[in-house]
């Protein structure tokens, strides 16, 4: 197990094998995704009425988020307790029961096994054995927490409360966008990224790359290294937020030395709608919050999105974006959110950069799993008031090693 071969420099080095080894991936599914972590499953506004459900994922496992008859939110593993078939095949809908098509076992909205055909057999013959107790065969249920319309679930029934899990500093940034106003989904984007899920999450903890790789951001002064910045890392290292204040100054005669913006040269927008930002929040024009293990709460100008990173084997992940606004949005604000979404997702003028860089990072790691990644920008795993640090990535791996390695690290 490569955990034991973590370089002596600690989290200033990351063994590339953690991104490529199938055995590490299996262990992550158990220890992280089935462990003591709150994982995003959806927005409460996606299931407003009793019986409303959506399919979601916890780790790589399909789950169902449903609002029961008492309006309580519940999350079940999408697996019949009989033979393991999925009891729900629709992406979303409204139902009174989940019935497995195979042998018609049916489950109530509280997960209880409500009906089994031929339980007593026919004419006294066959049926379920006397020792079969339906109460023992309800759907596997996860613990659920909701905050301001955002729903999380955990396999661990002893996980700390969500608010304590996030901690006061991260919670404040969460509440900055999800402040209790009713949320409204405006659309989704989903695409495969050809990298390990951790590389994708780390990408959002890496302020250094934004001003070098993303020439679109640099060219229009949306994310530049000289901007007012704050990197806040949770004391455990597991969550972090990158906050940036756009200057909207165009890259002048001297773009970042060596940056892609130099290549972009004289690019000027003909139509400003791609970046026509209307200030909605204090403290920054963009705040990118990463919540352990795999949720990114994105606020980039007027784009708001839950970006869920679903692991899909060691070499890939599925990035699932739920774009949202508020019920109270004006039509003009909705138009801003829609126009600026051109920068994000599978055709995003900024996201494409990341998707491509992550794919070549994975390819590089796969070819040299025994080499390390080097994280020497800045010191430690704490907060910083500048972009030229990799402290949030080190913090992530500090927590990762604690969860994964046990004594081995």
């Amino acid at each position, binding site marked *: 197990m490569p955990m034991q071969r973590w370089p002596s420099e600690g989290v200033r080095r990351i063994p590339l094998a953690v991104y490529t080894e199938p055995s590490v991936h299996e262990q992550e599914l158990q220890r992280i995704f089935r462990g003591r972590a709150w994982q995003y499953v959806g927005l409460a506004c996606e299931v407003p009425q009793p019986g409303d459900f959506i399919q979601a994922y916890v780790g790589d496992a399909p789950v169902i988020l449903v609002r029961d008859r008492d309006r309580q939110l519940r999350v079940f593993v999408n697996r019949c307790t009989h033979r393991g078939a999925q009891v729900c095949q629709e*992406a979303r809908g409204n139902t009174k029961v989940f019935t497995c098509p195979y042998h018609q076992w049916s489950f109530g909205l509280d997960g209880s096994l409500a009906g089994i055909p031929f339980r007593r057999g026919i004419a006294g013959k066959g049926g379920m054995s006397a020792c079969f107790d339906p109460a023992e065969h309800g759907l596997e249920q996860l613990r659920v927490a909701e905050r301001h319309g955002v729903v999380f679930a955990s396999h661990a029934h002893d996980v700390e409360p969500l608010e304590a899990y996030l901690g006061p500093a991260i919670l404040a940034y969460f509440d900055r966008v999800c402040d209790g106003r009713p949320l409204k*989904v*405006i*659309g*989704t*984007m*989903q*695409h*495969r990224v*050809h990298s390990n899920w951790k590389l994708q999450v780390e990408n959002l903890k890496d302020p250094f790359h934004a001003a070098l*790789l993303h*020439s*679109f951001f640099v*060219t229009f002064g949306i994310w530049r290294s000289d901007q007012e910045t704050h990197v806040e890392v949770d004391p455990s290292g597991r969550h972090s937020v990158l906050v940036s204040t756009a200057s909207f100054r165009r890259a002048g005669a001297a773009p970042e030395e060596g940056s*892609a*913006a130099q*290549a*972009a*040269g004289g*690019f000027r*927008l*003909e*139509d400003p*709608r*791609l970046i026509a930002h209307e200030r909605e929040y204090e403290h920054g024009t963009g705040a990118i919050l990463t919540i352990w293990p795999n949720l990114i709460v994105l606020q980039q100008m007027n784009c708001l999105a839950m970006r869920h990173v679903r692991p899909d084997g060691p070499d890939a992940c*599925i990035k699932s974006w739920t*774009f949202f606004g508020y019920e109270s949005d004006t039509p003009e604000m*909705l138009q801003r959110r*829609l*126009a600026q*979404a*051109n920068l994000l*997702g*599978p*055709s*995003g*003028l*900024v*996201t*494409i*950069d990341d*998707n*491509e*860089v992550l*794919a*070549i990072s994975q390819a590089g790691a796969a070819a040299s799993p025994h080499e390390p990644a080097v994280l020497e920008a800045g010191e430690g795993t704490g907060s910083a008031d500048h972009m030229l640090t990799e402290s949030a990535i080190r913090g992530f791996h500090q927590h990762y090693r604690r969860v994964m390695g046990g004594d081995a690290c």
Partner: protein
Amino acid sequence: MLTPAQQHELAAEAELLYARYNEALDDAAIEQWPGFFTADGHYRLTTRDNIERGLPLCFVLCEGQGMLRDRAEALRSAVFYRRRVQRRILSGLRFTRCEDLDAGGAEARASFVVYESVGDEPSRLLACGRSTDVIARVDGELRFRSRLCVLDARVMPDSLVFPI
């Protein structure tokens, strides 16, 4: 109302528009892309899922030549991606409304598939779906007044770098 002969002629002319459009994009001549649209031309790329749910979000939303040219120029100079070769295949082109070619525009539907090869990898299916377009005649040439590409799948296998 167009006569059958006129309809036939229009269909042939539209085939040529799509052939030239697809060829330009397959050749990665992204700078030519806005020229296939009218001055007020719209382009939208989204999923069947978003359409069915009535959700307005698009992967790509360009309203007017300015936004079309901004995307083309960004893809030419401000976005990093590996060299890729794409192949667009169109099928089942038919007009669902063809009276207003010189006024509002005629509506055409078609199915599309796009294959892509990145680096040394073999070509694989990148996207498939249906387009619903409004085509108008401007200065004697057919152009898109609006083009809506709706992807069948919810999950894309990779980035969709170039427009469809």
